[in-house]
């Protein structure tokens, strides 16, 4: 479960001065649900998700993730969260297995559990052929699988995806989409940010439209269509942002 409560994040920027990247955002996402944060570049999606993953500290407000407060117990939150984005790269000089082992150990898994989890995940994602190959020698699709394995190794109850398909080809993007659905079907709480309308339509149970750091509208896709009287998601998005 994720419950964001009046989250605010301010930065100091040399050129722009004080910037409010996220401005009083509240939403919630239940287990077995995918919540999609839809917004243009610079809308505040990444900052929002980084706060949920405790990579950034909120300036105001808080969020309860898997029962823990992001401001008070960030390490406990991180133990329950799997965070994946195109910015979360792999250690090129480690092998696929070493990469996943490293994160499993940091998650506090004991060696027998770690072995069992790695064997399960590697078999499920068909990674055994390249488990000993260095990450910098892997194809984009293989790298994506290693990243997925890294987020899954501790079996987190909450998954956070920050524009996970940016820059990926169709096949790699489909692997990610399938993985996101799988997470929901296994009862995990999933938050997902994107600016690709089609991904939102295909994957999300709930949608939040974010612009200039503010959550302008949220609901299921049918609810939003009804409220704004627009069927096409792109038109709907533009209407919300311009209103």
């Amino acid at each position: 479960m994720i419950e964001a409560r009046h989250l605010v994040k301010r930065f100091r920027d040399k050129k722009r001065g004080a910037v409010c990247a996220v401005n009083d955002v509240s939403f919630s996402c239940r287990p077995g649900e995918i919540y999609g944060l839809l917004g243009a570049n610079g809308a505040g999606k990444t900052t929002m998700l980084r706060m949920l993953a405790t990579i950034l500290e909120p300036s105001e407000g808080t969020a309860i993730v898997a029962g823990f407060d992001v401001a008070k117990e960030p390490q406990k939150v991180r133990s329950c969260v799997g965070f994946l984005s195109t910015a979360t790269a792999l250690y090129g000089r480690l092998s696929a297995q070493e990469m996943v082992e490293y994160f499993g150990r940091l998650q506090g898994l004991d060696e027998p559990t770690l072995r069992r989890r790695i064997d399960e995940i590697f078999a499920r994602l068909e990674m055994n052929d390249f488990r000993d190959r260095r990450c910098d020698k892997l194809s984009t699709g293989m790298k994506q699988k290693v990243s997925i394995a890294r987020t899954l190794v501790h079996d987190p109850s909450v998954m956070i995806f920050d524009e996970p398909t940016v820059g990926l080809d169709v096949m790699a993007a489909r692997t990610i989409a399938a993985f996101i659905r799988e997470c929901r079907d296994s009862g995990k709480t999933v938050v997902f940010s994107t600016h690709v309308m089609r991904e939102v339509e295909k994957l999300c149970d709930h949608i939040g439209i974010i612009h200039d750091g503010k959550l302008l509208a949220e609901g299921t896709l049918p609810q939003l269509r009804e409220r704004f009287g627009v069927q096409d998601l792109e038109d709907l998005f533009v209407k919300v942002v311009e209103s």
Partner: protein
Amino acid sequence: MSVRNVGIVYRKELIDSLRDRRTVISMIVVPLLVMPLLTIGMGALSLTLVSLAMKEVPSVMILGGEDSPRVMADLQRLNDVRIVPAKPDYAEEISNKEIRAAVEIPKGFDAKLAGGESSTVKIFMYEGELKSGFGADRLQRFFREMRDRTVREHLQARQLPETVARPFDIEEKNVAPPEKVGGVLLGGIIPYFVILLCLTGAMYPAMDLTAGEKERGTMETILCSPVSRTHLVLGKFLMVLTASIATAVLTIASMAVSFGAGKKMLLAFTYGAADAALQITITGKAIVSIFIVVLPLAVFFSAALLALSLFAKSFKEAQSYISPLMIVVVLPAVAALLPGVELTPALALLPVLNTSLVSKEIISGTYHWDLIALIFLSSSAYASVALAIAVKLFQREDVLFRT
């Protein structure tokens, strides 16, 4: 404090770094090559060059002297110089290394010498040029001997004892044992290299583990794991320190072996005519002591480099921050080589210079334990401050996500 997490981060960073060619080169290859090259290679090369210069029969020019056949005949008889015909552009010829030196015989030199009249012989040479120096030395020796002989002849003619012109002698006696003389000569250079390599050994991993991680996008990956930022920075710091210490240890070991082997080689090479520098002996006690005084400096370097490169957005930016640091370190390390710079309680508080000076003393066999303790403590204090800054910087979002 979870030692387990610090250990996990350290182990990963160690594996990662040992697979990186550039880290291996700076941490292992450079220290293993620099010392043998410096001691055996450079030593042999300079001895070869000096002995070649000494073996050369210098070409010298005699200017004037047409009215002084006696001195001219004596000069012509010299078999360790080659007399070339006089030309007006002698200075140019010396500069162009066509001749090594020239001597100007004043008008009526023979006659003035016989009549007891004073005159001045001028020797022209190119200062700082080894072979020109040897040529000029030869000429100077000739005229000095001639002057002494003339003085003796004048005294004998007047039936006066030689002590009239030389009432007493001055003799200088060296009380320093040979290894201390060597220590003074080479003792400054060795710590300079140890300190410099200690810094360069830590440099690459520090940049790779911070700015490099930001650049490659792995910083965000590691920050979303439950490891605390303090444990993360400590694990990384230990890796950088390992690289720095490994470089220092390998340098010291390679230095000891090189001196052992180099000394034998050079003694054989010079047929035993080794100068004081070759009398240097690096004892086990000196090696351990240098390691102890260098250790807090390695901690200081590692933490400072880590903090500095963490601030950078990219590897390139980190390099631009760290390059000036090289000068900051090299200057005090070089200052210890300057003549007359000696370890005092005040200088014992100056980072780098203190370590450089105390190492110089240790190599020459002098142990000022009170100053060694002061240096160890002051360097440890600087190291603690640098490490605290590195840990603090790792908590700052504006540093970690600087774009």
